[in-house]
């Protein structure tokens, strides 16, 4: 651990400020608590909000997992994980089951999270109404008055035009029947997972907002009686582990444009391959390791 910096980088006063905001966030699920976000040593848009929330939550006993697009080896996930290894000296792991704190960008792991876990989401634009109304002064009023008609109108216009709600990620949710909330840019496939046993914390650094969803809180994806919410997702199995229930990333394999779909959650895929599952284009796990070495 690097002793030139305080434990988990932030100074104590900053952490207290973030911690107070987190507690109010938990007490008012889905409400965006303003907080005095600090400049972090990584740029805005790289997860400064998530990093500040994680820094305020980490203890020396934690095991941290960081994912971006579902994977632990994405460059930004690597960079954030290294940051906390250096500044907080915490243990890290790729294994979802072993982690006590998971920081994520754009995905919820496939494996169910448990009561002793916290998941921290990196959020670019926390305001679900922002693209309907650019003014903060207005959207704040709309939340205060529970005036969410505009959002329903937008979704309904989609249906009128496309026959579908044309929002495929960052799909708005209603928390505990009160606040409309942006779940961060996770695919809507992940929305149903948000009613979970773990505590969910959301940090938006540039926009200076923190919000939370406590465990077992009601999270409803906005929809209409005649157009119920559908989580979507791929129709085939993972090319490597044959998972049928997982969110898949599509990859272009060669110049002719051949495609392959594999689990976006790299740990879930590994776990399945370790257990002996093999997809259409995969090979038993042992061989892959030898080839890769």
């Amino acid at each position: 651990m690097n002793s030139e910096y305080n434990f988990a980088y932030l100074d104590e006063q900053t952490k207290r400020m973030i911690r107070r905001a987190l507690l109010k966030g938990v007490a008012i699920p889905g409400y965006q608590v303003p907080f005095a976000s600090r400049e972090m040593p990584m740029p805005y848009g790289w997860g400064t909000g998530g990093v500040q929330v994680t820094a305020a939550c980490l203890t020396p006993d934690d095991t941290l997992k960081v994912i971006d697009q579902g994977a632990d080896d994405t460059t930004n996930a690597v960079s954030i994980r290294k940051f906390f290894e250096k500044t907080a000296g915490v243990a890290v792991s790729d294994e979802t089951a072993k982690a006590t704190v998971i920081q994520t960008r754009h995905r919820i792991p496939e494996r169910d999270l448990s009561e002793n876990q916290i998941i921290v989401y990196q959020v670019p634009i926390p305001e679900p109404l922002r693209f309907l109304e650019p003014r903060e002064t207005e959207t704040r009023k709309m939340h205060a008055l529970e005036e969410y008609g505009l959002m329903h109108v937008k979704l309904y216009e989609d249906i009128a035009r496309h026959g579908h709600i044309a929002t495929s990620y960052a799909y708005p949710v209603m928390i505990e029947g009160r606040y409309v909330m942006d779940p961060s840019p996770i695919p809507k496939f992940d929305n149903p997972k948000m009613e979970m046993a773990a505590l969910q914390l959301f940090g938006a650094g540039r926009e200076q907002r923190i919000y939370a969803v406590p465990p077992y809180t009601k999270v409803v994806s906005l929809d209409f009686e005649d157009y119920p919410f559908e989580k979507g997702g791929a129709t085939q199995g993972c090319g490597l582990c044959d998972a049928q229930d997982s969110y898949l990333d599509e990859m272009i394999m060669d110049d002719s444009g051949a495609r392959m779909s594999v689990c976006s959650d790299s740990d879930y895929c590994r776990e399945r391959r370790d257990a002996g599952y093999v997809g259409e284009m995969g090979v038993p796990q042992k061989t892959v390791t030898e080839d890769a070495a």
Partner: protein
Amino acid sequence: MQTQSLTGGFNDAPTASATAFRVVLDVMARPGKISEITGATPPAPLSIAAGTLLLTLCDPETPLWMASSFCSTDIKDWLRFHTGAPIVESRSEAMFALGSWAELSPITEFAIGTPEYPDRSATLIVEMDALTDSGTILRGPGIKDTAELSLPEVAAFQGNAGLFPLGLDFFFTSGNRIAALPRTTKLGG
């Protein structure tokens, strides 16, 4: 200032407060859950749990209201030295308030936030003789089915929950034990 004001703080503030905060966050996220929290050794009659909680969350930016039974010079000096929190006379200015339930009641003067900023509300720390997981039945966010907690009364908390999304949030402390009750929790039945 007595020398005892200078002692009884966190041994290693960054890690002690991090560990304490995780307990605090966990109990707030799971209303009714009772956990142990340690780190500070405050002057009596302030409990270890309440003392640790105050050191974890308070600083010069958090006006603190204290009931008279906790307003001894020892406690005030200890809090001033370790947190720097301004101690306020008026309940409406307080971000945190500390006292027994009888002293904190009636709770109507504490800030409950505004419709645009419901987070600008006070957090009350209720010192209890005992804290057990039996008594009032709790439901709501953070609770799988139901939980139970030995609340000092029901009506005031029901009234507070009725203000949602405005309202107060509560911690209950006793010895080294802590539990919480956010405004979202529904009581009884």
